[in-house]
C-alpha cells in the first residue's frame, strides 16, 4: 500500500485548468522527486496534498485513509508536513520557538491559557534536538529573520520535521541556495532518506537525480513521465525537453 496516493487530481482556477488529472503513488520510505517547467502546477499539486486547495475532482489518500478536501490543519494533524517554496517562518520568533510550534506535544497544548509556554524542559529539549538535526544546534536563540538565507532554508525543514510527519513535502528546498548550501541540504536529505516518506519538488536536477528513488515529471497538468532517475534519463520526453541534459 502507498503511504500517500493521489488519483485523478483536477484543479481549476476560474476557467483556467491548472491540473488536468494527476496520479501519484509514493510508497512508505520512498523519496519521490517532482519536476516540471515553471507554472506547471507543481506547487498547486502540493497545495492539494496538504489541504490548501480543494481539487474539483480526484482524491488523496494518506496511508489508505481518504483525506480529500480536509482543511490544512486537519491534514497536518494526520501527518503531512510541508516546507514552502517562498519561505514561510515565524520571523519574530527564535529558531527554537519556530520549531517548538511544530511539535505535536506543543500543538496538543495550544488552547492552554493557564500555563506559561516557556520553561517546559521536555519541549525545549525536543526542539533543540530537531534543530541539531538540521545543523542549527547553536542558533536556537536567534530570531528567524536574523538567520542567514541558508539557515532559514534549513529551519524551514526543521519546522516540518518537528511535526514528526508521516509524509514530508518539500517545495524547491534548494531554491536560492549556493552550491555549499545545496550540498549541506543534500546531506541532510540523504540522512532522512528511508526513514521518512518524502515528496520533493525540485529544479536542481543533480540534487534530484542523485537522491530520488523515483521521479515524476508534471507538464500540461499531468504526469508526462515517471520512473527511476536512470529510466528518466532514457525517456524520450525528458531528453527532448533537455531536462536530463546534465547526465
Amino acid at each position, binding site marked *: 500500500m502507498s503511504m500517500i496516493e493521489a488519483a485523478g487530481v483536477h484543479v481549476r482556477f476560474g476557467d483556467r485548468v491548472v491540473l488536468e488529472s494527476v496520479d501519484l503513488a509514493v510508497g512508505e520510505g520512498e523519496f519521490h522527486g517532482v519536476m516540471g517547467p515553471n507554472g506547471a502546477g507543481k506547487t498547486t499539486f502540493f497545495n492539494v496534498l*496538504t489541504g*490548501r486547495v480543494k481539487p474539483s475532482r480526484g482524491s488523496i489518500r494518506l496511508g489508505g485513509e481518504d483525506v480529500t478536501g480536509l*482543511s*490544512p*490543519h486537519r491534514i*497536518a*494533524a494526520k501527518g503531512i*508536513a*510541508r516546507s*514552502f517554496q*517562498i519561505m*514561510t*517562518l*515565524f*520571523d*519574530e*520568533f*527564535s529558531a527554537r*520557538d519556530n520549531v517548538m*510550534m*511544530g511539535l*505535536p506535544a*506543543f*500543538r496538543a*497544548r*495550544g*488552547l*492552554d*491559557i*493557564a*500555563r*506559561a*509556554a*516557556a*520553561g517546559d524542559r521536555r519541549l525545549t529539549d525536543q526542539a533543540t534536538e530537531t534543530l541539531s538535526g538540521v545543523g542549527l544546534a547553536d542558533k536556537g536563540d536567534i*530570531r528567524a*529573520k536574523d538567520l542567514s538565507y541558508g539557515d532559514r532554508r534549513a529551519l524551514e525543514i526543521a*519546522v516540518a520535521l518537528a*511535526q514528526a510527519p508521516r509524509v514530508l513535502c518539500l517545495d524547491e528546498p534548494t531554491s536560492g541556495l549556493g552550491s555549499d548550501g545545496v550540498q549541506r541540504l543534500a546531506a541532510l536529505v540523504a540522512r532522512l532518506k528511508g526513514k521518512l516518506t518524502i515528496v520533493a519538488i525540485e529544479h536542481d536536477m543533480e540534487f534530484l537525480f542523485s537522491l530520488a528513488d523515483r521521479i515524476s515529471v508534471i507538464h500540461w497538468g499531468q504526469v508526462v513521465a515517471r520512473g527511476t532517475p536512470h529510466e528518466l534519463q532514457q525517456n524520450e520526453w525528458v531528453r527532448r525537453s533537455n531536462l536530463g541534459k546534465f547526465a
Partner: protein
Amino acid sequence: MMANSTTSSDAARLVTPTMLVLWLVLATVPLWITRIGLYPYLGIEILIWSLYALAFNLVLGTAGLPSFGHGAYFGIGAYAFGLCQFDIVANLWVCLAAAAVVAGIAGALVALFISHRRGIYYAFMTIAFGQIFWTLAIKSHSVTGGEDGLLKISRLPADFGLVSFDLTDNVAFYYFVLAVFAVGTAILWRLVHSPYGRVVAAIRQSEVRAAHLGYNVWLYKASVFTLSAALSGFSGGLFAMAQLAAFPDVMSLHQSGYVVMMTLVGGGLVSFWGPVIGVFLFLTARDVIGALTNAWMLYFGLLFMAIVLFRPEGIAGALSAAVQQHSINALRRRGTSAMRLLVGGGR
C-alpha cells in the same frame, strides 16, 4: 516581537518585577495626584482605559488583527452593567460578570463573521459591526436611554461576605480599580505568554504556516476576538461605575479610534505595556493640554502621525530600542509591522 522585549524567565512568571513596580507606583497615586493639580478620577480613568487597551491589544498586537470597532464591546459592557443592576440584581460581581459575558457574546457573534479574514477586509468588517452596535444603542431608547445615556448607575459596594467596601468615594474606587487592574494585568500577561498566546502570535506572523502545522487558525482568531471583547466589556462595566452612567459615544467610530491611537502610540505592537503607556499619555494630554487649549486633539493627532511615520513601533518600542541599543536598521524593519497590519501582509 513581544517575546524579544521580555526575557524568557519573565515570560514564565505570573507576576514580573515590572508589574510589581508599576502596581506599587500606582498605589501611591492618590497620595500626590491632587498636589500636582490633577485629581483621583483621572487615575480611575487611566486604569480602566488601560485594561480596555490591553484587552484590545490582544487582537491588535498579539493576533495582528486590525479591529477598529472595539468601542462597541466597551460600551456594551457599560450598558450590561447598568441594566443588570436595574433589572436583575444589584450585586457588583454579578453585574461585572454580566458586562463581560454580554460583550463576549456580542464579540463571539461578530467573530463568527470576520475570522476568516485579515487585513483591510477585517478592519472594514469590524467597523461595520461597530457601527451597527452603536446605532442600536442610540436607537433603542427604551433600553439604553438613547443619546441621553443610561443614567443613575451606582457604584455597588464590593462585598466580600465578611467585609464590604463602599466605593462611592473616588479614592476608594481608585483602589478597587487598581486591585482589578493588578489581577487583570497578571492574567493577561500569562495569557499572552501561554501556549495559546504563542499560537495566536504565530498566526499573526503566518496564518499559512500555522495552519499547515496543524493549528485551527479560524478557531484561534475567533476565540481571541471573543476574549478581547469580553474583557473590553468588563472594563466597560467599570467605566459605567466610574461615570455613574453609560453613554453611546464610547461606541462611536471615533472613540473606537481612540483606543487604536492609544495602543499604537504607546507601542502595543512591540510591547505588552505599550497600551498602558499610550492611555496614560492620551488621557493626561487631554487634561493637561486640554486645560490650555481646546485643540488638544490636534496636538495628540500630530504626535500620532509623527509616531506612525517615524516610530511605528511606538513609545515602548523606542524605549526598549534605546535600552537595547538596537541598530537603526533593525528598527526600520520592525517598524513596518504597523503598515503591514493594515494591508494584511504576513503570509
